[in-house]
């Protein structure tokens, strides 16, 4: 009976995995198909073609590396530069967002100052304003600061993350107060407490915030498009990949090949930190 239950459980899990992985598998297969066959539902060459050319030749005329070759060697599409820029922007955005949210969250959680709750409510209420509203004033500011075509123009405007402050305040409030008090009695200042008490106990939440910021900025298109001129050396991958979409046409094969390569860092980082990520989600969101 137990064995039967296990089989059923695994079958269910395999089925569920299949549903989750289907879009990714389809993306990889589309990227590997010949560009003209990108929209085809077929996974294998037609029977007639197999008989005419033999399996290997027919297979080669169906699947190839041409889409990858196109995006890696296209003179108008500097994949390595776009990839590097995306990584720098996403990584630094994630890192500095975590730093800012941690210090702000700590202040809101453990410090007393005038108007603390009112200020926090004000911050939280700003979450109700759609992000697009900020775009023009933020752009004007970035332009006035001379940050067009620069990393700081793409990173700094996104560092103020109210959700991150909320998440970390909530998390830091959950930690035993006695830990902070005893550290304080031992003579530790706020910086010491932050580094030696708060951070070691907050890794899962910090990594969660880092990951969410990283993935958001990795996929950010519009902001990175408008703060870079068309000849900018700081253009990122989503901006570059958009070149494969015309007015009426989308080069599915090339876009899928680009997407295959662009999700690699996210997969890598997620696999590396998934234990913390899940723990962080539980601590920060559910338990709170």
């Amino acid at each position: 009976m137990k064995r039967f239950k296990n089989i059923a459980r695994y079958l269910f899990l395999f089925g569920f995995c299949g549903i989750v992985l289907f879009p990714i598998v389809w993306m990889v297969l589309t990227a590997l198909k010949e560009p003209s066959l990108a929209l085809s539902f077929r996974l294998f060459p037609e029977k007639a073609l197999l008989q005419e050319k033999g399996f290997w030749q027919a297979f080669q005329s169906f699947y190839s590396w041409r889409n990858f070759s196109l995006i890696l060697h296209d003179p108008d599409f500097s994949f390595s530069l776009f990839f590097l820029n995306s990584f720098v922007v996403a990584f630094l955005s994630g890192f500095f967002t975590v730093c800012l949210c941690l210090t702000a969250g700590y202040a809101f959680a453990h410090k007393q100052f005038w108007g603390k709750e009112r200020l926090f409510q004000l911050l939280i209420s700003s979450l109700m304003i759609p992000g697009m509203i900020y775009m023009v004033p933020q752009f004007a500011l970035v332009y006035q600061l001379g940050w067009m075509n620069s990393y700081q123009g793409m990173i700094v405007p996104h560092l103020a993350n109210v959700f991150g402050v909320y998440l970390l305040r909530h998390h830091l409030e959950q930690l035993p107060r006695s830990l902070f008090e005893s550290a304080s009695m031992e003579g530790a200042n706020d910086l010491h407490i932050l580094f030696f008490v708060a951070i070691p106990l907050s890794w899962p939440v910090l990594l969660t915030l880092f990951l969410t910021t990283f993935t958001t900025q990795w996929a950010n298109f519009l902001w990175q498009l408008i703060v870079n001129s068309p000849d900018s050396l700081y253009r990122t991958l989503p901006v570059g990949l958009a070149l494969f979409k015309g007015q009426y046409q989308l080069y599915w094969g090339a876009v899928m090949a680009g997407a295959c390569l662009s999700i690699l860092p996210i997969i890598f980082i997620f696999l590396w930190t998934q234990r913390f990520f899940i723990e962080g989600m539980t601590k920060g969101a559910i338990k709170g």
Partner: protein
Amino acid sequence: MQHFLTLIIFCLLSLLCFGCDSQVQPPLEKIQLTLWESYNNEEHHVFLELLAPFCQAYQERTGKHLEIKIFRVSHDGLLPKLKTAALSHTTPDICRVDFAHVITLAYGKAILPLDTLQNFPQPLSTYRQNFLSVAIESNLITLENESTGTAETHLYGLPDQTTCVALFWNKTRFEEKAIPLRHAKLDPTRAPKTWEEFLAYGKILSTPEKQQFAFGLRNTLWWHFPFFQSFGASFLFLDSTQRWRCGLNQKSGQEALHFIRDLCQREYDVDGKKIRIEGGAWQSGGINPDQGFMNGLYAMIFSGPWNLKTFRDAGVSFGVSLIPAGSVGSSSTVGGTNFVVFRSCAFPEVAFDVLQYITSEHFQKQWCERLGQIPTRKGIVIEYHDYPEMQVFYEQMQQSRNRPPIPRYDLVEQLVNPEIELVLKGIQSPEKALETAVSKIENQILSLIQK
């Protein structure tokens, strides 16, 4: 020593005389223009190649050194990018924009009226005759002159590309159904010519048990215009009080929407089987018409010249025909792009020369023959060796109408599409949906242009 001094003096005098020769050329005046374009890979390379001789010819003609810095930008996000660039005074001198964006940029006073430039070949009424009317019309915009308070029509761009949609039909699917089609006295070697025929073909071409349907429909107003227009509906008209009104909810518009709804909703009884003509492509999660057509799921779709190569390379056996005719004949919807000159341009006359070159007969002929496109100028004979279907598009172009010349066309789509979706889902009647859509359009958009 004396000889040496004499030689030096002689050299200095010679230098002085010949050095001050009046024949020495002054440095060339340098003109630099930035141009943003959003062509695809293939078009981009042809564009660079065809534009290259212009600068040299310009220098020979005017004695001025012209440099055009061409930047390729993505079509997605171009309008917000231009708007923010306008905010920071970093717009390009010339830009290629969608038909629908010209009016937005003109209303925002970001682009120049070309017919006010010194080198514009007046009069405008004669100049516009050089272009296909549907292509040039998207650039003729009537705005209020702030100083005189009168409405004036000016030309804000020149069309470089124009396109329309026609009916693509899958020959293999028609051949498979050749016998029943012939039984019904329908020709399996051609596409339907009228909407009545379209229904008759549709009933036979749909095979629901094989997940094959006669038609794949996109649910956006731009793709519905061929239906509305061929049924005689006018999107925009002036009423007796000289106010702009939206005519989608008139009788012809209602008939068109009833027809669309029937395609998607109605089940016809054919040989004891319930048959639906449309395959659900309009629904979210439905199979995209292009993909469905390529894989044989939809026997007919509306599409444009941009898909000719894609379908051919994928080995699809297909034909292209005019959009079936309704009560007022066949009609299609027009798309395309225009080149505009921004107000920040320091050399607008030179920029206009560039635009004239891009839209010249010589340029357009080569462009269209190499890329299989419809010329924006009249009277150009294009030999479509590689794209014989283009003749159909060219013919369809003569029976096409431009999208309404109003700002915020994107908002029109946002207002109309959900209402039509309710009709297609059977939640709302066509009359009610069109009434609601028209009311929203008149309140939110036409009120902006009533003056």
